[in-house]
């Protein structure tokens, strides 16, 4: 479904990604783990076109998307939950969700999707007329995921959904991610620091270090791998 070929991304003169290649199949949960500054977020930003790559190709459903602008990429069916949630604090919960459906004009289906979101996260339904900035961290993360879902993505890019959340909430959010994947057959690309949790729900995983992918295997194998255990799982 998604194919990344020899991707290199720069911030000015600094090369952040060095010749990255990866592949995501339809219906999978893929996770990308690594230390701070390894280039995980940059990989997502390059795929979504917000930080366009300097070299390499990205194909989504056999279409080259590395030359497209971010809004074109979203309209292809890739939607991103940015790092640190980044919800719109002065818009209400419902308005935040409506912004997620910005490129869609099928009012009926938008309503249906909104009802699905209220089902998925009942707490958001209670807070639908409340400004986004007044939600708690966990609720904001739920809102950020819901907002991305409102675009009806085929591929959902999740950037550190566990950031700054209590373990119990993290568990709840990962359950939902699994549910979204199972119910809608939405392919999920999960970037995480919390390697243990991420590898438990993912089918396959990539390990990244200093802008290079060093390992790629099924998540079961990665969980048992001695090097991964030492570096990321703290075992």
């Amino acid at each position: 479904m998604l194919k990344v070929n020899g991707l290199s991304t720069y911030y000015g003169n600094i090369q952040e990604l060095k010749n990255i290649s990866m592949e995501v199949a339809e219906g999978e949960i893929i996770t990308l783990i690594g230390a701070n500054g390894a280039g995980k977020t940059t990989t997502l930003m390059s795929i979504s076109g917000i930080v366009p790559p300097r070299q390499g190709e990205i194909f989504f459903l056999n279409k080259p998307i590395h030359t497209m602008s971010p809004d074109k990429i979203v309209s292809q069916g890739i939607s991103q939950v940015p790092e640190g949630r980044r919800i719109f604090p002065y818009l209400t919960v419902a308005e935040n969700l409506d912004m997620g459906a910005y490129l869609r004009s099928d009012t009926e289906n938008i309503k249906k999707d909104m009802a699905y979101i209220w089902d998925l996260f009942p707490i958001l339904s209670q807070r639908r007329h409340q400004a986004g900035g007044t939600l708690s961290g966990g609720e904001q993360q739920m809102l950020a995921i819901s907002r991305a879902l409102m675009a009806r993505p085929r591929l959902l890019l999740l950037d550190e959904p566990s950031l700054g959340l209590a373990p119990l909430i993290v568990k709840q959010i990962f359950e939902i991610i699994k549910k979204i994947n199972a119910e809608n057959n939405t392919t999920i690309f999960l970037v995480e620091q919390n390697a243990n949790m991420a590898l438990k729900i993912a089918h396959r995983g990539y390990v990244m270090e200093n802008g290079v992918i060093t390992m790629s295997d099924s998540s079961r194998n990665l969980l048992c791998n001695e090097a991964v255990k030492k570096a990321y799982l703290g075992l």
Partner: protein
Amino acid sequence: MMTFTEIKKSFLTSLWFMFLTFPIMVIRVNTIEKQVIWRWENMWYVGIGSFLLSFAWRYFLRRKERGGNQANEHIANMSSSIQRIFSRRRYKIPAMVAAAMAVVVFPFVMNSYQTNIMITALMYVMLGLGLNIVVGLAGLLDLGYVAFYAVGAYTYGLLNHHFGIGFWTVLPLGGALGALFGVLLGFPVLRLRGDYLAIVTLGFGEIIRLILENWNEFSYGPSGIAHISKPSLFGIKLSFSGEINYMYFLMIGMVCFTIFVVNRLQNSRIGRAWIALREDEIACQAMGIDKTRTKLTAFALGATWAGMAGVIFAAKTTFINPASFTFMESAMILSIVVLGGMGSIPGVIIAALFLILLPEYLRAFSDYRMLLFGAIMVIMMVFRPQGIIATVRRNYNFKRAEN
């Protein structure tokens, strides 16, 4: 609390002010009789005045910071109660009817001078609401808004002067040309934000004014264009006061139209996209909002109102020259938006009426007008930074559980 340190602070402030104003307030040199007059009594006035003012200033500042913002909440409650009156059906209709009656009766009760300054004030309401789109909703600080105003005015001035084209034809044309210039300016400055954008728009405003001032063959330079025709009413010849009344109702109509459109825009998807863009650009891009196009529409739509207001301005004064389009005008319109409350339509209307009408009625103090203006701005920004009427969007109400 009147502690000793408070008194000492105020005393030092007043000493400092006495020292600063000494050369202008105390010494007067009479060059004809070659005398120096010492006016010591003025020093006392300055001293006592600044002592009391600094005392009051510190007292109010502390009251604002302490005590759960009681003073502030009082004002906030007042303005939100204004909103509540307008949001409640029972009060809404009578209030609207009363306002409409006042608006209709105004030119027949007041003399033509009063009506005339009201027309000017209404023009600023329109400009303020237009700039409100750019600054209040999209969060793009535009210091060169007057450039679009000038574009509209000169569109009508030149077309009328050369080809005799009437007001009603040029009105939409002026708006369209304003929008075009908005897009022209928008393209190069889109990647800029905040302070940088402010500087570039400031430069653009000055460029337009300087072109109009120096390109004599095109715009007749500083001498301007005179004898621009007033708006026509189906070819009926109007008396002097009839013309003013016509202009007044035309302006009322335009303001109503502006309020309607801005209100619709604010609650539309594009309006929400502007607010979203103001809050978080990266999140917007991740949602598939085209950053470039959204910012351009904000610029263009804001400029449209300035263009139309410019056409009306040219028709009202029948004479335009570049001196009407200085940076002061931009600053004035921006002050209206900030003072009224960014993004708030009723706030902008009240601020425009206040800022334009007050100086007219304070003609007696015309020397101190700008001083007073500055003082009001400082006091407003310190004690009520959210503006006269804060945006409704920021106040949300919990629906209490029914039991």
